[in-house]
């Protein structure tokens, strides 16, 4: 079921086109938007949120175009990379102010503020002035603002950037909970290590175009190919055994070696061959993750073009 879609989206600023015909379609669940700097992620978020009108194409949120009908924007909650809070107001007052901006019914305002404070565990900082909040606390208040009107769609621009790991983990859990509750959540992030853990549906944006879309492992196959790089640690002559088996290895940190294999099936064969060769295998891990490979692949492409 499509909740949020963009058809042939072109957009930019004063004649500089940033998005070149983006087609997207999202249903309920957690979706990830990935791309190098300058790929157009923020511009795409602005267009999808109804903030920046596209020069061509159309956005539909539950069948309604937010650019033609501003009231459709109430279906979307947006949490910016750096949420804009009124610095002299407390966290709770920022939320109360936003209930008024969103024109929520007066009878619902206090209830909604209490609910999002409870949901995001903001009780301890509710009375704290916004300009004294940490980055992570500000991010959570920004997410709370996005949730105030109970919108079915959430657009979150790097919600866990510069947030300490414990808070980031809690935020990810909360996002999974919201997705399970039926929200359509699109998250833009640079945190590659967490990205593959966060969503199974990843859209890769590159130079204002959708470069690929799918699960992390599928994307890796599409963009990078089937090869894998493994990190190995073992007893005995691991380097010699690998050389004899036809897998030249590079040294890595802490007595580990890096080996390239053509596909996942080869990993099993290689380990069996090494054991037969008298090597005791202590560790076999991927040297990177699937999304990291995809991301690096795109960045290498951009650097090569720039050079």
């Amino acid at each position: 079921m499509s909740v949020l879609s963009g058809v042939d989206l072109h957009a930019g600023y004063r004649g500089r086109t940033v998005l070149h015909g983006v087609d997207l379609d999202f249903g309920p669940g957690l979706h990830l938007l990935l791309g190098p700097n300058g790929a157009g992620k923020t511009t795409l978020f602005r267009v999808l949120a109804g903030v920046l009108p596209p020069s061509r194409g159309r956005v539909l949120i539950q069948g309604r175009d937010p650019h033609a009908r501003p009231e459709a924007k109430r279906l979307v909650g947006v949490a910016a990379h750096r949420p804009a809070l009124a610095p002299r107001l407390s966290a709770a007052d920022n939320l109360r102010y936003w209930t008024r901006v969103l024109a929520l019914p007066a009878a619902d305002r206090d209830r909604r503020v209490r609910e999002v404070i409870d949901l995001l565990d903001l009780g301890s900082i509710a009375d704290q002035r916004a300009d004294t909040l940490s980055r992570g606390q500000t991010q959570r208040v920004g997410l709370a603002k996005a949730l105030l009107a109970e919108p079915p769609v959430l657009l979150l621009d790097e919600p866990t950037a510069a947030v300490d790991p414990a808070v980031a983990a809690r935020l990810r859990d909360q996002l999974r909970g919201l997705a399970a509750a039926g929200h359509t959540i699109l998250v833009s992030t640079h945190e590659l290590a967490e990205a593959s853990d966060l969503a199974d549906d990843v859209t890769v944006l590159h130079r204002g175009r959708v470069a690929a879309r799918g699960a992390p492992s599928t994307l890796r196959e599409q963009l990078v190919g089937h090869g894998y790089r493994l990190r190995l640690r073992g007893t005995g002559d691991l380097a010699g055994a690998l050389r004899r088996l036809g897998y030249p290895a590079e040294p890595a940190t802490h007595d580990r070696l890096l080996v390239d294999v053509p596909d996942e099936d080869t990993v099993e064969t290689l380990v069996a061959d090494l054991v037969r060769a008298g090597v005791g295998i202590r560790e076999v891990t991927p040297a990177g993750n699937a999304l990291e490979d995809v991301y690096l692949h795109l960045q290498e492409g951009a650097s090569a073009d720039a050079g």
Partner: protein
Amino acid sequence: MPAEPEPGRTGALLGALLWRLRRERLRYLALALIPFAATTALTIVLPTVTGGAGVNGVDRIGGFGLRYGTHAGTLAVSIVLMIAPGLVALFSAIGVASIIRNLVGGEASRGGLEELLATPHSPAAIATALLSVAAGLATTLWAAMTALGALAVALTVLASRDSATVSGAYLAVALILPLLAAWAGAGLSLMVNLLFPRLAQLGKTSALVNGGGLGNGLALLPALGVFLTMSTGAGLGPTTFLLTAGLATAAIAAGSVAAVARGFRPEAVLES
């Protein structure tokens, strides 16, 4: 289910902005009043210190004051009567421009305007609400400063042990011109902050008007015009004077309001 918003969203947004200002305890307004109060106090004290001897052309200004209906002979009263409207206009414009720069320019640089654009309010509704807030702030500052200015006149009359009678024409000029200048300043400042946000950030660290910015500089022009016309246009007669200066200031106010209402584009804010 999403909560259904209340009807009348421009009113709701205006209410939200005013609620926020009130919650911030009108700190900006208080700050804007301090320079005016200080300058007005100096204006009362200074003529007393100089002893009434004509210095720096104050006797000439006093003469203009007399022509506007001051039947008392006291130079200090005349000076205050002539200077007070100009000061009200000038400091109202400075105050409202600073507030708009902090509220609108500051919000734009923090991403607050982008967040507003993502709410169910059209850009025109947002511009209208901001204009209403700006006009309201300008009026509030004008009213507070006019009250202080009237107090300054009363104190000066008391200090001079004299009496003063002012004509209706003077009252009209002294009340209407500063209000129009404050509105024009508010409109110009908002216009620069919304339509040319990059320009509004220029010179923000300079000494130009309380933190500076092109918006602040432009906002002062109508008020400076009030000063100039009070000094040079007195010979025109109150009606012609009020019509000429008043229409010019009103045209600036209306022009900037129209420019904001028609020209506000999300791209300009987002680019900055």
